[in-house]
């Protein structure tokens, strides 16, 4: 049996969760004070997810960087891979907020989209 400890982020309270696992299965969740916490604990133990935000080069843009984010959460373990993909590309202005920058990034089913409008320089 394995015990994992997490601080819940479902709400600002930050309950300290204990999740007991047998292999890949969750056996017990302790420390939560609501249903959302239970859900969070389960997810975090089996397949933790995160939202990701970063910036992309836009050489002809009003600013040299365009802020982007994942429209949905991605597996925590694959964050570095996604950051690599984001680092490797350049985009061209003008861009509109929510334009898709990288569709279905590394097969996660989640798009990386623009966080704001970015006009071209001048």
């Amino acid at each position, binding site marked *: 049996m394995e015990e994992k400890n997490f601080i819940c982020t479902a709400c600002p309270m930050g309950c300290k969760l204990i999740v007991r696992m047998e292999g890949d299965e969750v056996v017990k969740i302790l420390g939560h004070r609501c249903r959302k916490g239970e859900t969070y604990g389960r997810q975090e133990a089996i397949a933790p997810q995160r939202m990701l935000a970063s910036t992309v080069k836009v050489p002809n843009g009003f600013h040299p960087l365009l802020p982007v984010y994942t429209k949905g959460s991605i597996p925590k373990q694959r964050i*570095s891979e996604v950051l690599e993909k984001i*680092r490797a590309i350049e985009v061209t202005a003008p861009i509109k907020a929510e334009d898709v920058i990288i569709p279905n990034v590394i097969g996660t089913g989640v798009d990386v989209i623009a966080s704001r409008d970015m006009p071209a320089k001048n």
Partner: protein
Amino acid sequence: MQEKYDYIVIGGGVVGAMIARWLSRYEGKLLLIEKEADIGMGCSSANTAIVHAGYDPLPGSLKALMNVKANPMWDQLAGELNFPFERRGDYVVAIGEEELPLIHKLMDQGIKNGVPGMRMLDAAEMRSRERDINPETSGALWATTGGICDPFQVTVAAAENAVINGATVLLNTKFEDFIWEGTRVIGVKTNRGDFFARWVINSAGIYSDAVMHKAGVRPEFIIKPRKGEYFIFDRAEVQIHNVLFPVPSSRGKGILVTGTLHENTIVGPNGNVIDDKEDTSMTKEGMDELLDGAKKLIPSLNLRHSIANFVGLRPMGNGPCYTPGINYNNDYVIEVPSSVQGFVNLGGIESPGLTSAPAIAEMVVDLMKDAGEEFVEKKDWDPIRPGRPRFAHMTHQERKLLCDMDPRYGRVICRCENVTEGEIVAEIHAPVPARTYDAIKRRTWLGTGRCQGGFDMPRVVAILTRELGVTPFEISKRGESSEYLFRPTKDLEVSDVN
């Protein structure tokens, strides 16, 4: 940039700049070399900014002579060079009855030195002059000829006037050795090449001992740095208008509480002698000392309202008293040594060095005349160094006219101190140019307010990048090795995240 000059001044502090200004009046090619990225980066920009009345130095010392001679020169100088200067008078405040004899003694000393305009105040008068003064005050010496200035502006103004009159100022140029012809100095070796001159003047501040030793002059003369730490207070919270001295001790004039021409109040300096000439660090012990000293004069002063601190190293020398027979061995050395030709030697120009600078410059010229130099006044010598507009101090109408004249003055870069892009650009292209953030800060007072540069820093870096035509990675705070930016966000030198 040529190699042959008539005069070379080593050191771009206030004394070196003032000497250059005085020499630039005469025919002859003049070079001032300064090892840092800007002039005045030594104690010329880290002092109490006071133009002393002259009661403090020992009668018979060169310090006393220079101080009292120089003090009345400041009004004309401020008018010609257009730097901020005000005669506010200063107070030496006695706390408790036991300190009264000390300020009387100070007044007697002042009279001996020839200081005009001094008066004794009783306790009630002192309390009426300064509302928050320690209620235990027993009286004060009030010296009406005391003044305050912006010492860095003085340094810049003097250097710029020299440049306007044909002098060359080389920054990032460090003296390494003299070039000789027998016992005559004929030039200097620097990290940027050799320069020749008929006269070389040693005005190297804290390193003046090392320079004179290279000329074989006064091997027994040693400079020890005396560290002076200071606090600056938020002008919105603390408004001391007066210049308040405590009673002096053997360690010096003591920890002052004084207003400044930027309307900030400053507290300092303490006076601990250290070994390291590069140690401008602020210490915890120093901070405690400053607070104790400040509270002696103004008990209500609260450190919570401080917004910045700075440290200056005063070049304390062991020069003998100018008047022989007086037992005093911290006097100025200002001489044309007999053992070496073509060399003017200065050493140990600590307080009242800022005050004395114009008199010292005059003395240097006189010494050179006595040694046979025949000066010919330039027909087109211009004593005036024009001031530059300060948006922060202008009325609404003046600001409107300024913006109409040059739209860059409409763009405020430092919000706390109201410094505009027009002013920053003017300093970058001034006769003695500002090339680093701190250089601009010293000239415009930008970044010294509540946010301490938090808002203006990225914008100033961008303006410097543009105006100097360099990459942003070359912009520094105070010269090489103090750059701001390492690389573009998305370019990795080494590999990745995990």
